[in-house]
């Protein structure tokens, strides 16, 4: 048996450069012909305006969610759950290829016949807490196998296991600095990109090696996630730009989304709250805008759009907090 090694997190995703990103964007770009052009970080720089960007497709594996999106007129939503399956399969196929390459390289099997096909490899996936239908879980299982997970060798397997909320609870139990005793209660809140997942758990075994717990109520997920921050940011940029039609005409129509995808905005978002990043104003470089371009009305200084950290709430909405605004 291979000795147990610490968890290795893949952070050399294609196109991510030397940033050491632990996450790769769930993004695909397709040619007009329907052929896939790029995935993940590689989509950056590949978007020449002629290609179709696909994101957020996992949740559209569920028919109800897709119907909601279509009812709202979301143009980027797939036309059917079958199309969502194709996007998810395309994306996960590339994830699989990269995971395979990385692990074969790290284990010295990259150039051996068969690579890792002879090893016992188990792939484990969690499922969104909001997926309560066995049908969509089975669809997801089909997708992951079609993408290559669990089928390359006789001892390869792929499982769909805990919900994301349960997985977060296990992480808390296994890795928290807090010592849990028998009977301890804890609530995990996994605030993710699309949903916030809640799990109220009680420790039933405090064994350090094999801790155990039980859920005290059904795990739940709500549709509140970090993507809403992106959406509000884009609305703010859109409002500014639209106030100056001549400027708006000179920018690509998806400029707000491009700015929200920028490395600088994501850094501000991810680090918000950390003392070193809490500045009175945030300056986000504008790709394609000259470094000496300034426009007070738009809040652009030397090619960077400027945002103040916060302003007081309008009295009608004030709850003693502030909110992000231009």
């Amino acid at each position: 048996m291979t000795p147990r090694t610490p968890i290795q997190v893949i952070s050399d995703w294609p196109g991510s450069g030397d940033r050491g990103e632990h996450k790769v964007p769930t993004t695909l770009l397709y040619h007009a012909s329907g052929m896939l052009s790029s995935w993940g970080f590689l989509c950056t720089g590949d978007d020449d305006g002629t290609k179709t960007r696909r994101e957020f497709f996992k949740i559209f594996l569920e028919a109800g969610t897709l119907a909601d999106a279509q009812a709202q007129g979301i143009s980027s939503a797939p036309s059917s759950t079958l199309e969502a399956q194709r996007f998810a399969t395309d994306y996960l196929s590339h994830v699989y290829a990269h995971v395979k390459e990385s692990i074969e390289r790290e284990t010295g099997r990259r150039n051996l016949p068969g690579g890792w096909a002879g090893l016992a490899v188990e792939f484990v996936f969690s499922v969104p807490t909001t997926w309560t239908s066995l049908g969509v879980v089975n669809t997801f299982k089909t997708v992951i196998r079609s993408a290559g997970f669990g089928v390359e060798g006789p001892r390869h397997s792929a499982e769909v296991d805990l919900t994301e909320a349960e997985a977060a609870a296990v992480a808390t139990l296994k890795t928290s600095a807090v010592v849990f005793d028998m009977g301890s209660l804890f609530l995990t809140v996994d605030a993710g990109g699309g949903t916030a997942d809640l799990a109220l758990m009680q420790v039933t075994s405090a064994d350090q090696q094999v801790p155990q717990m039980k859920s005290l109520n059904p795990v739940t997920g709500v549709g509140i996630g970090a993507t809403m921050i992106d959406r509000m940011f884009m609305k703010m940029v859109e409002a500014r730009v639209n106030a100056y039609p001549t400027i708006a005409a000179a920018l690509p129509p998806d400029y707000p989304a491009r700015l929200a995808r920028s490395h600088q905005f994501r850094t501000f978002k991810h680090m918000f709250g950390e003392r070193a990043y809490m500045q009175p104003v945030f300056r986000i470089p504008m790709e394609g805008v000259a470094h000496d371009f300034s426009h007070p009305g738009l809040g652009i200084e030397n090619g960077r759009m400027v945002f103040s950290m916060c302003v007081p709430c309008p009295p009608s909405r004030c709850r003693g907090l502030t909110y992000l605004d231009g």
Partner: protein
Amino acid sequence: MGAPNHRFSQLPPPLRELPLHQHIPFSIPLQAHKMNGDATAQPDIVVAIDFGTTYTGESPTLYPDHR
């Protein structure tokens, strides 16, 4: 190894049919060490995939009813 402690009956009905392990199988970030006591059954490699939502763009209000 103790008895399973997940209360399957408290999960939403469809999820009871998922192949949940007897023992807590995951560590994190996200899920990686199998905690099965039978060492001979250990896989050589466990790959955990957190297929989440990293998205920026036209964003729908996807779960308005908290379903």
